[in-house]
């Protein structure tokens, strides 16, 4: 027996010791946390960075002449640089801090959308979008009289692109808003190819990277997207911090989303001139402490290496899929090809509602998600009301998958006798 259970790419036993919450029990059982697509757990390093900031450097940023203010500003701006390097943005100026992915996408839909989309224009989304990347565009279309064009999915829940993205584009297409990795069925979309095709048609591209940046290497210059959004809380960081990456020219041209303190250059009674980018998009005191702690999360993931994170998740997902398929008559959603399937597995037990599945495994310490996963349009296209979903991260092990599979056996025993 080795001292660590190394599933290939990561030293999981060592990683697990960094996560205090993994010490707790749920109903007397060791916690098996498989709800990572909703939010991840946080390592000690991130929790300590948060307390350390409050204990040593807390001050408001940007406007203070005192030392604490200077330190806080340096730490906050330092994380902007880290984020910029993490996704290979051309400059930290292209990074705007928000509260979460939803706010990042709303920022674009409001600030860019209201200035650039008008009646008769077209907005392209997919049926597999999280409500966060669906509702803002649907509302923009309704408000402006633009048309919402929705790309469907095929039997295996990959995008229906048999006739090419161009079949969904016209000269009126202003933006294509598309998820990089889906949060329910796990499909990874070919966003780089789609971005190239959209650009050839003169449309911009927004990538919802809430489920990709935490789980795989993402390079915004390689993808060549115009906007990209993600959340700190899904990648070991604290809640309350989101990121919007945008091309510099777009940020420079766009009007602000929220106005007030910090985002101005000069205010008179009659008019206001805006601050430069990215400050123009960060009105008011931002979530300084959580941004600082987010820096520790990025360090942690950078140390692991995002390719290793992806490899680890691939192995555990493959293993879980193999074990799930052995269960009788279970329906598993999402692509078969693991290269286009992220660390998320959705499934249904015939004749058992996903909430009953969730309740039964919960009492054995296994936390999964049940329901529509904020993917109601996709659920409707599959003609189901919801799924049970297990989603993995760097601290999960094959042994935990075994516990989960055992717990699922209990579901079968109870419902199917």
């Amino acid at each position, binding site marked *: *027996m*080795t*001292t*660590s*259970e190394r599933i290939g790419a990561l030293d999981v*036993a060592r990683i*697990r*010791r960094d996560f205090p919450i*993994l*010490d707790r*029990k749920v*109903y*007397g*059982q*060791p916690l098996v946390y498989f709800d990572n697509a909703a939010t991840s757990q946080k390592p000690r390093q991130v929790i300590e960075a948060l307390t350390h900031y409050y204990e040593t450097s807390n001050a408001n940023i940007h406007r203070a002449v005192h030392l604490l203010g200077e330190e806080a500003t340096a730490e906050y701006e330092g994380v902007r640089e880290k984020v910029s390097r993490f996704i290979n943005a051309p400059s930290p100026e292209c990074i705007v801090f928000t509260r979460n992915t939803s706010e990042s996408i709303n920022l674009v839909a409001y600030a860019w959308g209201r200035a650039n989309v008008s009646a008769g224009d077209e907005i392209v989304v997919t049926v597999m979008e999280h409500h966060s990347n669906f509702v803002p565009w649907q509302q923009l279309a309704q408000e402006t009289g633009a048309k919402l064009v929705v790309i469907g999915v095929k039997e295996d829940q990959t995008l229906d692109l048999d006739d090419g993205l161009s079949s969904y584009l016209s000269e009126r297409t202003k933006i294509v808003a598309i998820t990089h990795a889906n949060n329910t069925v796990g499909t990874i979309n070919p966003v780089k190819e789609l971005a190239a095709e959209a650009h050839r048609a003169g449309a911009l591209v927004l990538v919802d990277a809430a489920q990709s940046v935490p789980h795989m290497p993402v390079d915004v210059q390689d993808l060549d997207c115009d906007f990209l959004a993600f959340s700190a809380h899904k990648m070991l960081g604290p809640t309350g911090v989101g990121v919007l990456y945008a091309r510099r020219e777009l940020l420079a041209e766009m009007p602000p989303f929220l106005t007030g303190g910090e985002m101005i250059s000069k205010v008179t009674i009659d008019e206001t001139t805006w601050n430069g980018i990215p400050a123009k998009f960060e009105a008011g005191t931002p979530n300084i402490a959580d941004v600082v702690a987010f820096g520790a999360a990025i360090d942690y993931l950078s140390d692991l290496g995002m390719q290793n994170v992806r490899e680890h998740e691939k192995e555990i997902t493959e293993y879980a899929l193999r074990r799930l398929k052995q269960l009788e008559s279970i329906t598993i959603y999402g692509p078969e090809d693991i290269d286009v399937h992220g660390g998320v597995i959705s499934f249904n037990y015939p*004749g*058992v*509602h*996903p*909430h*009953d599945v969730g*309740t*039964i495994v919960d*009492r*054995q*310490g296994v936390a999964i998600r049940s*329901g*529509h996963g904020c993917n109601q349009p996709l659920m409707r296209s599959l003609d189901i*009301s*919801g799924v049970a979903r297990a989603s993995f991260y760097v601290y999960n*092990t094959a*042994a935990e998958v*075994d*516990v989960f599979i*055992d*717990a699922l*056996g*209990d579901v079968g*025993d*109870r*419902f199917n006798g």
Partner: protein
Amino acid sequence: MCLSTRLVTWAIVSTDDRRRMSSDKAEYKRQETELDELYQEIILDHYRNPRHKGRLSAPTASEEGYNPLCGDEIILDVEVTDGVVSDIAQRGSGCSISQSSASMMTEVIVGEPIADVKGLIASFTAMMRGSDDDLEELGDLEAMAGVRKFPVRVKCATLAWHTLSQALEKAKSS
């Protein structure tokens, strides 16, 4: 059932982690018992074979109940004749608790005077809130008491009853 497998599985993780990963057997049994009380045979039977499933051709009132948290949905058709619930039909979709609760409800209220049905609604909701005062009056419905140990599922159990209450209001004014 799976306790031994669980211990074996966990044993392959490092010795350092073994202490915190050991499972509490007494607690495990307790949880199994609570699940047994939640998923009683009578509840599963109503889930698999729902009573009064469908719709009425000429209902006095229809009402739709929806639980946005779970996506549970119940649609009730009620027929009221001379102050008595003379017929009822239910349809919808959702978890075993919401669907079986609706099915059990239809069985006990058909043929009952509105006043008694209202009393039953009050007793059932009181039971789901933790009261044991009216258990006798509730008869078979007492099986639903197991849901109280699962606070997030209580709404599933009460959905049909809230919907019924609204349907009766509608019936009164029609």
